[in-house]
């Protein structure tokens, strides 16, 4: 095969298409997918589970905060502790629940995006309409992300409202800003898993296999990744009694290795956003900690702290998309 060209049109073709059709393809796909999602069982199940779990976590958190209210009063961002506080009966704070569930939600909404159309036999018909192939991926991604984002935002609002009633404290502007920033970060995070699941749905022809692979990757990342990272760092660790610089370098290496995992990235960023006293993520040397003035960060300072993590999450999402596009463009329509 000589001169292999992709079926993908040049940018000039796309500009001419844009002028005639104003790039409506992906929006039409998204609108249909949105309607499908809202009527689908998985949407209702997700809404019910997340809503109930959220209420349960916030009930216990607010209980804990009330019990400890005397010491806690005056502590910074008391309201945000609603999301982060843990106790004996209930080890899961709201944010912990969300960071656990989000990847699964992303996978659930994306694993059958393309291979589902394939097995229904609708893919050739869909691609024979005047839309680009990437419109299908983009539209489905947009619809999925919108639905999940709406659910997440409403559940968070529900939790906040519930806490407001139980605790009787009004969140400050900073707290609200942090909450919003955290919801946005979570949507970026779930977008990554959605994009990854869609990549699986493009590359793997059977939906069940795609779901399994995506789930397996999540499991491997959440269970074994930190272990592997510390093992690797341990293997490279300098002998005992070497210069402290080498030890610090090794600790940094271990941290950088764990940061290859989106789960770590998201958790670090979450902690920094929801806890204003977190000044940095990563290795802190004793002398740095000594010199640090115990104070809280403003929201924009916290945003600066989490910026690298957020950028890394977006970059990973873009990577998933790029790979999915390339595979999809080269695929035969029938399979």
């Amino acid at each position, binding site marked *: 095969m000589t001169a292999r060209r992709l079926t993908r049109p040049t940018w000039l073709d796309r500009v001419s298409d844009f002028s005639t059709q104003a790039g409506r393809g992906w929006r039409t796909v998204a609108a249909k997918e949105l309607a499908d999602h809202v009527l689908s069982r998985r949407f209702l199940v997700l809404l019910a589970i997340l809503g109930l779990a959220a209420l349960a976590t916030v009930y216990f958190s607010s209980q804990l905060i009330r019990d400890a209210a005397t010491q806690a009063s005056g502590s910074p961002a008391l309201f945000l502790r609603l999301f982060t506080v843990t106790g004996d009966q209930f080890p899961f704070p709201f944010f912990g629940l969300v960071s656990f569930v989000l990847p699964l939600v992303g996978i659930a909404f994306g694993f059958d995006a393309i291979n589902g159309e394939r097995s229904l036999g*609708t893919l*050739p018909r869909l691609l024979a309409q005047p839309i680009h192939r990437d419109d299908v991926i983009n539209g489905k991604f947009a619809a999925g992300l919108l639905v999940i984002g709406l659910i997440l935002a409403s559940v968070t609002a529900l939790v906040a409202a519930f806490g407001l009633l139980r605790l009787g404290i009004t969140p400050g502007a900073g707290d609200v800003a942090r909450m919003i920033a955290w919801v946005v970060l979570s949507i970026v995070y779930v977008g990554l898993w959605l994009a990854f699941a869609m990549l699986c749905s493009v590359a793997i022809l059977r939906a069940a296999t795609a779901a399994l692979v995506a789930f397996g990757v999540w499991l491997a990342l959440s269970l074994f990744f930190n272990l592997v990272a510390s093992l690797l760092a341990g293997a490279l660790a300098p002998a005992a009694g070497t210069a402290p610089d080498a030890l610090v370098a090794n600790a940094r290496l271990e941290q950088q290795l764990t940061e290859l995992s989106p789960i770590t990235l998201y958790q670090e960023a979450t902690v920094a956003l929801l806890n204003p006293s977190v000044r940095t993520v990563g290795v802190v040397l004793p002398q740095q900690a000594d010199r640090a003035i115990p104070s809280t960060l403003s929201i924009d300072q916290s945003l600066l702290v989490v910026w690298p993590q957020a950028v890394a999450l977006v970059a990973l999402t873009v990577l998933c998309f790029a790979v999915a596009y390339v595979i999809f463009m080269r695929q035969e329509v029938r399979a």
Partner: protein
Amino acid sequence: MATSALDRAAPGSRPARTRSRAKEPIITARGLTKMYGTFTAVDRLNLDVYPGEIFGLLGPNGAGKTTTILMMLGLSEPTSGEVRVAGLDPTRRPLDVKRRVGYLPDDAGFYPTLTGRQNLRYTARLNSLARGTAEDRISTVLAQVGLADRADDRVETYSRGMRQRLGIADALVKDPDILILDEPTVAIDPIGVAEMLDLMRRLVQGRGIALLLASHLLDQVQSVCDRVGIFSAGRLINVGSVDELARRYGGDRSEILVGVEAAPRTDAAAIGARLASQPGVVAVEPRPMSGDGDLNWALTLDPKASESETRAAVLRAILADGLLLTRLTRTSPSLDQIYRTAVEGHLATKGRVEVRSTEPGTGTQTSGGRRPRSVGRRASRRGPSARKGERR
């Protein structure tokens, strides 16, 4: 190339079509080739389809019909050669092509939880039809394919034949200039097929659209096609009207059918042998026919011998044996037979050519080993989805 010469020769022979043929072809393919690895699915195809005609792309499973269609729609990229649809290159301008072409894929699927109408609405929106126009068109095409009363039921309650009708409606929603239907009649009952073909005829006559129809069910579609192209193993081996092809392939080969009443002591083998020994008879083949208890044979005649003399000889032989003749008719070749003759002839020459043109050691390998493997692979890949389709 033989095919394109035949193609060009065709216009003069059917005056009824000269008017439409005077136009520019709306689909052209020149040297169109698609390779999957080393396997050639479509081999140097030359083809013209004109507005206002129904062109039948006929060939057995795996001949390359669907692959050809996918290249016309820009859904699959040609390995070499070129194809133009409405003057556009589908690879470079896929959207403009798809706006003008209505396509019914082989074994088309629909969203099972949506109604037929909702499925068509999605197609209409993907084609940027205005809401009002879309609703009107959807109702029209649903009525045209006879689904008006089931339009608001979920597609999961449709039979396979109904889904196929919905597929034709789906291809018509965008009001296309070109209609490409891949195996449109496979699951439709005979009366439904007649209705469908009638609808296609009316569409072509009424709107002057070009209709390209791919099918392996030759007898079903032969009545409706203005021209057919016979496809075999990736090559278009002949193009012309059904009559022309009948003359081309049936002219040097005639067949008569002989039937005698079966009595308790008739010896079929002996009669067969006696028929074979008549002058002018090349081959004898028992041909059981449903509906009567007679013994029937098909006799292939030597083209050089006189047919009436042979008939007379056969008649004399039967009478001499004291048998009761029930049938003595000439059969004209059906498209099926034309097709079989053409394909067999093509495969035979192809095999010879390949053996001659390759190295002694590899020749047999290329002609024998390649095709069955990929046919089998394809069949197994389609298996589950086809079965799934039945269940819906």
